[in-house]
């Protein structure tokens, strides 16, 4: 009998998974992708919208049109999953039985979890650039911003693209300089972490860049309240940060149907899974890809792309009754815009932190170092996203597993 594969979510991960599986299985499987809307947003482009560097219209394309022929698209909200009965219930009343389920519903912004965040001043003096409406509203606010305190704050982790708030700071520095008002603006980056980034080597480089650009770093700031009327952020341990303009990255959680699906998710609605095979802990025929997964790697499009290769291989093995041999190593690859037409690149996995050197080999893009080449890489990524990543192609010379040659591994003498 032809196998039924249901994929929940038609964003980066759902699209990659569907297209790769269609290519591997041809007519041997009925593939259905479910999403609640038809607008696929190129999320890395959201960073550029507030600075007038990207046109919001160019970031949005039709979801179903990114899917290869033969893949069905069903538009509805997901209501809940019964993993033991192998059924998905949709908001429109449809019930989809499956042989394999792929969870690809990403991460949800939860601004309501932070006291006051969506209260007075929301989208006026308190902003986020993590969705399209927010990025556009912030763009308007920045245009009129010529003096005062601009505070960029990550409320809690995990978040999508954990370097994006830092990139925002670097670009804000550049943008304000271009406009000749940088000396009248205090730029502050407040993070719940004890450094600029989670991993020590990259944290040192990135905090060095913040200092160089005159951006104040406030660490271990866990935001308890956003007081829009009083224009201040208050941390749980009682510290206050005054702002004239706040850019806040709200806490993230998984899709809310996960909470309504017994046994599927953790306390945040993310889906626990085997970090190597991407098989959900909930049931042997449930797999997870992208931001929806509770895995110790970044929530990033690049991770989702590398996972896609492993996921498709494992699902094909599973359907064939074979052992799962696809092993995901946590490979993450992020360009970090640093302003003035430059960017850094970091490349790491579950076991190896971001290190200096070159990617993907000793001759290649510089790692953990500002360069114009990396900036061009970041810009080219938009084209690659629609034409390579989503269709499920591999990047020539770059594989799902992290390359080791080219990286400068610390010797015992360094540590």
């Amino acid at each position, binding site marked *: 009998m032809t196998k039924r594969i249901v994929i929940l979510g038609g964003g980066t991960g759902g699209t990659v998974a569907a297209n790769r599986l269609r290519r591997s299985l041809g007519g041997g499987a009925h593939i259905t992708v479910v999403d609640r809307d038809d607008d696929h947003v190129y999320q890395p482009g959201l960073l550029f919208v507030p600075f007038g560097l990207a046109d919001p219209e160019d970031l949005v394309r039709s979801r179903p049109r990114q899917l290869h022929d033969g893949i069905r698209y069903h538009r509805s909200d997901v209501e809940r999953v019964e993993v033991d009965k192998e059924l998905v219930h949709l908001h429109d009343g449809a019930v989809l039985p499956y042989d394999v389920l792929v969870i690809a519903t990403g991460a949800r912004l939860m601004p309501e979890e932070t006291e006051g965040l969506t209260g007075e001043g929301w989208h006026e003096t308190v902003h986020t650039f993590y969705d399209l409406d927010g990025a556009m509203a912030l763009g308007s606010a920045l245009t009129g911003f010529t003096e005062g305190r601009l505070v960029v704050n990550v409320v809690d982790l995990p978040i999508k693209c954990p370097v994006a708030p830092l990139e925002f700071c670097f670009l804000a520095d550049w943008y304000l300089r271009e406009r000749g008002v940088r000396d009248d603006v205090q730029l502050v980056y407040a993070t719940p972490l004890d450094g600029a980034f989670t991993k020590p080597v990259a944290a040192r480089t990135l905090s060095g860049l913040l200092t160089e650009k005159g951006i104040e770093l406030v660490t271990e700031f866990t935001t308890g309240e956003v007081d829009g009327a009083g224009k201040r952020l208050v941390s*749980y341990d009682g510290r206050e940060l005054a702002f004239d303009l706040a850019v806040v990255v709200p806490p993230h959680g998984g899709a809310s149907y996960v909470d309504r699906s017994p046994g599927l998710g953790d306390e945040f609605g993310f889906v626990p899974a085997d970090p190597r095979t991407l098989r959900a802990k909930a049931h042997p025929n449930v797999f997870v890809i992208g931001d929806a997964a509770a895995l110790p790697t970044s929530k990033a499009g690049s991770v989702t792309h590398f996972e896609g290769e492993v996921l498709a291989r494992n699902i094909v093995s599973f359907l064939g009754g074979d052992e799962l041999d696809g092993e995901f190593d946590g490979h993450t690859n992020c360009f970090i815009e640093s302003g003035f037409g430059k960017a850094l690149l970091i490349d790491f996995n579950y076991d190896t932190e971001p290190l200096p050197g070159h990617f993907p080999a000793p001759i290649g893009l510089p790692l953990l170092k500002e360069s114009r080449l990396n900036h061009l890489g970041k810009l080219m990524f938009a084209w690659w996203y629609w034409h390579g990543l989503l269709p499920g192609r591999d990047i020539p010379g770059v594989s799902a597993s992290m390359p080791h040659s080219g990286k400068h591994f610390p010797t015992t003498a360094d540590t």
Partner: protein
Amino acid sequence: MSTATYAGTEVTVNEEGFFTDPAAWTEAMAPEIADEAGIAELTDQHWQVIRHVRHEYTEKGSGPTVRALGKTSGVGVKQLYELFPKGPAKLAAKIAGIPKPRGCI
């Protein structure tokens, strides 16, 4: 790496004071570790959090973050900060004798 003595037993801790071998921890050590961290007395609520942190570590291999603690320990985030000022996740982990929570990437 260095050593510390709690409840009359020597244990190894890292440079930040977190246990390197969680199996070496006993409940009798907790009040002394707490005292060093500026918490004079461990109340029932402190213990509720400490036991939860220990349990989560055994189940998942890492201590919970503050947000996770707020959702799963039965004690809200605001109150967690009252019980363990300046960082409940780290302090509770230290007192519970487990490594520093890895946090998220």
